[in-house]
């Protein structure tokens, strides 16, 4: 089976979001976006995997997050698995 794994990675609360700070300031500077309170910038990864079932996919994805993709000191992740074929 083929799966698409969507991983959304965000900074933990309390961790300085350097990018978000700059983007917020820049949007405010452009005018018209006073309604905006805050932008937080994270990452989004899309993995294509083939595996026998959803459970295997999830285990693999968790493993990859731990091993490389996510820095759990400062980041949080959420994983969504979609079957594509």
């Amino acid at each position, binding site marked *: 089976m083929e799966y698409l794994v969507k991983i959304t990675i965000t900074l933990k609360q309390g961790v*300085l979001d*350097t990018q978000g700070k700059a983007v917020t300031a820049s949007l405010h500077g452009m005018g018209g976006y006073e309604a905006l309170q805050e932008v937080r910038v994270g990452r989004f990864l899309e993995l294509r995997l083939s595996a026998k079932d959803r459970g295997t996919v999830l285990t693999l994805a968790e493993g990859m997050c731990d091993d490389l993709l996510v820095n759990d000191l400062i980041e949080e992740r959420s994983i969504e698995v979609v079957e594509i074929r």
Partner: protein
Amino acid sequence: MDYVKAGLRREEYEKIRSALEREPSDCELRVMGVMWSEHCCYKSTKPLLRLFPTEGDAVAQGPGENAGVVDIGGGWGAAFKVESHNHPSAVAPYQGAATGVGGIIRDILAMGARPVASMDGLCFGAPEEAKTKRLAQGIVAGIGGYGNAVGVATVGGKTLYDEAYNGNPLVNAFSLGLVRLDAMASSAVARPGQKVLLLGSATGRDGIAGAAFASAELGDDEKASRPQIQIGDPFEEKLLIEACLDLHEAGLIVSMQDMGAAGITSSSSEIAAKSGVAIELDLDAVPLREADMEAWEILLSESQERMLLIVLPEKVEEVLRRAARWGLGCAVIGDVVEGDRWVTRKNGTVVASLPASLIGEGCPEIHWPSKEPGDLERRWSFEPEDMEMPRDWAAETKRLLASPNLAGKSWIHESYDTMVRLGTIAGPGGPVSVIRVRENGHLLSLAMETDPWKTALDPYRGGTETVARALRTLAVSGARPLGLTDCLNYPSPEKPEQFWELEQSVRGMADSCRALACPVVSGNVSLYNETSRNRILPTPLVVAVGLIDDPSGLLLSGRWQKGDRLFLTGTVAASLAGSQYQILRLGQGRGRPLDLSFEAEREFIEKALATARAGLAHSGRPLAGGGLAVALAKEAARSNLGAIVSLPLPTRADILLYGEGGPRALYSVPLERVEAFLEIWNGFPLTEIGVTGGIALHVQGHFSLSLGEIDRALGR
């Protein structure tokens, strides 16, 4: 909260209590626990640091301020310092290394200097370990990510590998800035009536009590011992640099202080103590990233990219205006008043009130017991005969060139901006880094050195050799040493044999500095670099700074020209003890490194300076790791030119080819200047060893390597 949990020893707690004449509050205990940690107050090493000579003709500011400053002529000074960020980099390699770079830059900035050049000293674990690769990649990316963005050129560094650094990598960040001597900032000039301002990022929960963390051994479970790590924002730092220099040049600030370890607490109490005044802080005025922070969290936060400013009341408005123009946050957070107090309030109540002088200077020194290790005999028992001579010299040389410690490091330094600010005359890739100072027309040479292997074998001799090697490197480039900065990276001082190593190596460094007239103007100590499994080699690292008055007196390496005569100056009989050749063959150092003759070192320095100034050589390289063979190969590779070399054989060939230590250099001299060269070196051991030319390095009777083979081995 009890004092042990705060990280204080009984004796320290008693001292605080008797100074206060009452029980310290929880907040006070936490503050003192951090401020009296090794990282902040050097309680274990103060007596040792006093061994260093700190005075000299060129010293404009010795140890004690944020960075040392030496006079570089024309009314200008160079402010410089090296600092460790070892523990943070072990747990969060990218952010740990990045914030190390940011932190040292702010120390330079706090002197009123514009940071212009950085270097990084890196010690990694066994190269084949997956974890080493991950740490090394993260650390290098962090240094580049921060340094490149703030626009300070990384002009050189040092990288070495040894399994002793497994899980305990070292990251020593050096930075140098330029300051007009009559405009140097000082933290000792605050006066009652002035205002305390906080410039830069809002304060968050990151890195709280990181200094205490840096002062303990790393736990086995790193995750458990991870404090909230600090995140570096080089964008904010770049603005902070420009804003501080702008405010300083406009005469709008009395004093400034970077916020490194122990953040607001250390910066404000240091100013108070040094200036002999009291400071009162209102924590409600501190801009926070998270509203619910407690007083001690605010006081000990190590949020990056902040500076503390002392400002005359009538200038506050203008400072706030300019800060806004730079896009930076700025707030008035307190007052300077009469007395010797450091008082902080939150919600109108006093949360800490301590004598300012007690916080920074009051910690009782610790004199750890020192004991000569029992295994010195065994360490030193080594005869060259214990090692079989290589059968295939070409293969041996290639193996050495390809070893991680000696191979090219372009994967590292090409990821750094080495040229920004247009000051780099010689960047990474050679033994010395050279920058130009447009302000006065001179050049500065910088040399970073460390030799943990020799230091481990014989700490005293390792210490002398480390300093001497840096000064030789400067001298060969034509630079007279002005001063140096050091970073003492060691395991725990609490084991008597380990303290002895620390003590002896500092003695060695200090003796070398004194004998060779190079004062120590700044430095840093990082102890407790060990885990339950592993401890680092004693790793004193130095960066020496030297001056070349006339740019035409600069001599670089890797510049052989066809037909040059090659000379080895200095003894042919170096030592295998702790040499890269030996480490590679035996997996560890054995034997006793050479005992230096300071007399010979001084002579070498004078002659090397004279050689460079008179322009007698096309190329000069001090011998270091890998000895003569590696120096020849690196010179050939960088010059893209071969040579025919024939060596005398008074000793074993491997000692001659690969031995290390002592004042030695390889020069390439054009034929017409040979006579003048010989005249300068008259009275010093000197051997003519060959002539340049061709496309191979041919060492008669031993090996012949094509330039292509050398390049491949070095990974160029």
